[in-house]
């Protein structure tokens, strides 16, 4: 394998069209489609007594109005529970359109189809829904008391309860280890809700071909293959008659892995029913109140430790808010519970979580997916231990690290993929050393002192994480070299800005020995590749990257075999350079892959001059052999299915300044050391880190979902939900460490989510250092800090 392209910061392929305004996002398609819009519940909890459409019927341009009662068969059934788990004893999912009860503001009740979106929304405004109000259940702790219920048949609002315990190596339980620990601390932590909030909302566009009885659906999704299967099942269509395509997608960050959304079923169903193309593009308010949120947890922590700060026992109790429904199961709290352990080997560990229903938008993974909360718990714990013992915070962490010689390291738990939580590789002490150098950890006390003399308050914080990436079960890749010498690569998973067209082309070009320009990549199009899982959990590069590499190796082998016959050489003496197969050391006497592709497909009929070489009288075939030994065509397919996840890791540090008067919080420096194994394209990995940190800064200082006691989301707009602008994000300094994964052929680990994971814990630690006040709740605004100061005075 040449290393020319793998590892190079090659500019992205996709940008050529995107900077020209030639992207094809969902709402750029289907200009001739009619538009859908939805009447959504303005109430958090209510019974629908009546829906009166009479005022709406005369609107010019109205095509159809549908309520739950109009939906046939499986379309009328609740949406699937995507990831069942034995602990999820009371999983509940919504109906595509509300049946009798609405359980959060924004739940869809009526679908309107009209000639355009303006008219459809006019119609929505004329539909009168009569509600009987039910008591809204808002606030995690109130909900956990179970006085009022979100679902009548879910006592205590308790969807799931899971206890996991790993005894200490000497067999002692958490209770015993806590009992005998020299020091014990107990405290509570809170994290508020935030959300993925991609700049492009969700959207669906469906075309029904009545002649062909086939359905083509475009969806702004992170998993086109799964949407396809769900649609075929719900609509009762043969799978081969349904195609789903994820076009250019304007960001996902987790929210678009949920599927099928109500709209994803209803829009195609309406297209079939009406015999017309139908499209729905979500608006921003809909995205706030009708998609999904994440993060909200209350954590109670009890930790026992020794004089060096080594953790002997850790007991964590988590209340997790999963909103009104659980379509994605309990993946988020499972990840919190398992990834909480980070780079540490601790004594006995017990983690209990209760996943609770509230009358709010459902909770499903958002970049980081439960890890930011777990890391917040663990890293705040490390800081508390250091403060208690008067030790340096990095020394306490180092005392707990898993050593570089201890891999594979089994944490004794079951991870989100249902497999043992075994770390494959890493070098945490080296990572910490690099971070301390990058941020200037050891010089900070002097800097702080100097600042204090000028009347300024500054503080430093640090946070470490380990991230299970590249979860299975599998992904596949298909590679075809055509007789024009072009290489066509496809994989089933989707792209939302990660640069897959570029990095997968880098892998294919490297594996095949062809010029980068010859390779094109298609993702998320079931017409090209039907089997896939999806793009989430930092898995695309690991899963599809390796699958494509394996598929390329098959094609390469086939090419060498065919070329060896033509060149009368031994395939083992051949290599491919710049798209030409030749004997090692003799690049001049070679045969282009384009010709090999021709020869791979014995022809009766020529369609151009090149193709004549493969016809029966051309003299290229051995008359004593059957014309076709293998499959025709120079193509190959393979799958990558890992036995378990691969574990990336990283450490962040920040220096913040807090204003002594206004309590304004400013990040002065932000440093990241990141280890995702071998880098395919360092420029793209850095971009992922920058974007993750920016979302982390949003979650630490600005973003929250402000629900009032009635279950109204008070800040459901970009005006009020404060995402960071360029003015809020600090310059991010990065350094890379590469400990290759032994689990996959390319040695890579995922990088998509990493940046966001430790930010809240790092910023909390830095503010705490600046202020000398414990920071136990994130995000923190200047007024929160101001109140904390007053409460402490």
């Amino acid at each position, binding site marked *: 394998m040449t290393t020319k392209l793998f590892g190079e910061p090659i*500019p*992205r392929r*996709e*940008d*050529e069209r*995107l*900077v*020209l*305004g*030639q*992207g*094809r*996002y969902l*709402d*750029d398609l289907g*200009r001739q489609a009619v538009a859908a819009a939805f009447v959504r519940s303005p109430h958090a909890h209510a019974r629908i007594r009546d829906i009166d459409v009479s005022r709406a019927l005369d609107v*010019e*341009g109205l095509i159809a109005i549908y309520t739950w009662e109009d939906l046939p068969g499986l379309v009328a059934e609740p949406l699937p529970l995507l990831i069942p788990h034995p602990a999820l004893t009371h999983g509940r999912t919504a109906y595509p359109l509300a049946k009798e009860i609405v359980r959060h503001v924004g739940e869809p009740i009526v679908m309107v189809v009209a000639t*355009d979106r*303006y008219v459809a929304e006019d119609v929505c405004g004329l539909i009168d829904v009569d509600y009987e109000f039910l008591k809204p259940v808002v606030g995690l702790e109130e909900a956990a008391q179970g006085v009022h219920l979100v679902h009548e048949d879910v006592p205590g609002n308790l969807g799931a309860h899971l206890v996991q315990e790993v005894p200490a190596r000497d067999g002692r339980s958490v209770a015993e280890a806590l009992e005998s620990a020299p020091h014990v601390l107990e405290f509570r932590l809170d994290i508020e809700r935030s959300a993925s*909030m*991609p*700049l*492009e909302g969700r959207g669906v566009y469906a075309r029904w071909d009545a002649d062909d009885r086939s359905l083509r659906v475009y969806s702004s999704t992170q998993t086109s293959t799964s949407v396809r299967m769900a649609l075929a099942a719900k609509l009762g269509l043969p799978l081969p008659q349904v195609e789903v395509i994820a076009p*250019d*997608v*304007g*960001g996902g*960050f987790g929210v678009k892995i949920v599927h099928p959304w109500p709209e994803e079923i209803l829009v195609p169903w309406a297209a079939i029913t009406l015999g017309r193309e139908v499209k729905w593009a979500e*608006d*921003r308010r809909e995205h706030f109140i009708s998609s999904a949120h994440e993060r909200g947890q209350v954590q109670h922590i009890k930790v026992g430790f020794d004089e060096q700060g080594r953790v002997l026992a850790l007991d964590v109790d988590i209340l997790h808010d999963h909103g009104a429904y659980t379509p994605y199961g309990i993946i988020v709290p499972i990840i919190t519970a398992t990834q909480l352990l980070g780079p540490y080997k601790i004594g006995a560990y017990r983690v209990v979580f209760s996943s609770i229903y509230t009358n709010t938008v459902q909770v499903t993974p958002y970049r980081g997916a439960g890890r930011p909360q777990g890391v917040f718990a663990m890293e705040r714990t490390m800081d508390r231990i250091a403060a208690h013992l008067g030790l340096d915070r990095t020394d306490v962490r180092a005392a707990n690290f898993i050593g570089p010689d201890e891999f594979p390291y089994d944490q004794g738990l079951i991870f989100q993929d249902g497999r043992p939580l075994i770390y494959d590789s890493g070098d945490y002490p080296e990572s910490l050393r690099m971070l301390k150098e990058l941020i200037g950890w050891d010089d900070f006390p002097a800097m702080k002192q100097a600042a204090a003399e000028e009347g300024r308050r500054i503080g430093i914080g640090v946070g470490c994480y380990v991230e299970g990436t590249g979860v299975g079960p599998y992904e596949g890749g298909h590679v075809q070299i055509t007789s024009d010498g072009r290489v066509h690569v496809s994989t089933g998973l989707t792209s*939302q*800005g*990660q*640069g897959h067209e570029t990095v997968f082309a880098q892998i294919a070009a490297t594996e095949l020995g062809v010029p980068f320009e010859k390779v094109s990549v298609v993702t998320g199009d079931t017409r090209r590749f039907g089997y896939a899982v999806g793009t989430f959990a930092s898995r695309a590069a690991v899963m599809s990257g390796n699958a494509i590499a394996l598929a390329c190796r098959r094609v390469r082998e086939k090419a060498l075999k065919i070329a060896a016959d033509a060149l009368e050489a031994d395939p083992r003496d051949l290599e491919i350079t710049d798209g030409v197969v030749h004997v090692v050391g003799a690049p001049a006497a070679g045969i282009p892959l384009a010709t090999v592709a021709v020869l791979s497909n014995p022809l009766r009929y020529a369609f151009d001059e090149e193709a004549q070489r493969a016809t029966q009288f051309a003299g290229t075939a051995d008359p004593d052999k059957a014309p076709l030994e293998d499959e025709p065509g120079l193509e190959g397919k393979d799958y990558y299915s890992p036995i378990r996840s691969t574990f990336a890791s990283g450490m962040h540090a920040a220096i913040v300044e807090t204003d002594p008067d206004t309590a304004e919080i400013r990040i002065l420096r932000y440093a990241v050391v990141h280890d995702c194994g071998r880098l395919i394209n360092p*420029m*793209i990995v*850095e*971009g992922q*880190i*920058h*974007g*993750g*940190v*920016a*979302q982390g800064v949003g979650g630490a200082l600005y973003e929250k979902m402000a629900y009032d006691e009635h279950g109204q989301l008070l800040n459901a*707009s*970009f*005006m009020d939900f404060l*995402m960071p*602008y*360029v*003015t809020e*994000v600090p*310059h*991010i300094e990065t350094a890379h460490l590469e400990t290759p994964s032994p689990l996959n052929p390319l040695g890579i680990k995922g990088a998509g989510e990493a*940046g966001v994971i430790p930010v809240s814990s790092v910023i909390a630690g830095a503010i705490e250092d600046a202020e000398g006040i414990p920071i136990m709740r994130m995000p923190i605004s200047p007024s929160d800090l101001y109140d904390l100061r007053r409460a402490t005075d």
Partner: protein
Amino acid sequence: MPDLHEISLIVNGVVREVTVPARRLLSDCLRHDLGLTGTHVGCEHGVCGACTILLDGEPARSCLTLAVTAAGHEITTVEGLAGDDGPSAVQRAFRECHGLQCGFCTPGFLCTATALLRENPAPTDEEVVEGLSGNLCRCTGYQNIVKSVHRAAELLAEES
């Protein structure tokens, strides 16, 4: 049916006639009536800047503008930034510096940066940050966008 208005807009140097109801947003008119889907809509309430176009050369939010009020005015969308010889310096710089990921916010940033550099061909870091401070990007963390604008300034200086 609401009253319809026949208007003419000068879009990317071409006169375009279009018939719209008074309430039609300029963003929808460009995207759906004229088929210029490069202009994106991220919020439709004037905060994200994805819909930024140049109205008589000045950045404007097409989601907060009614198409009828743009009648007779010159509009440049992202599709109009490239010249006959290919992508503009700003467009090339964004690609070179990895100033975009999903690309959804990008047309707004490109238009904003184009106007910024026309006013101020050699902006300082603060001036770039200030100039971009009305546009949201959820993917990049902005670092490479700022870098792209500086790079574009360099490219423009080389070209002139």
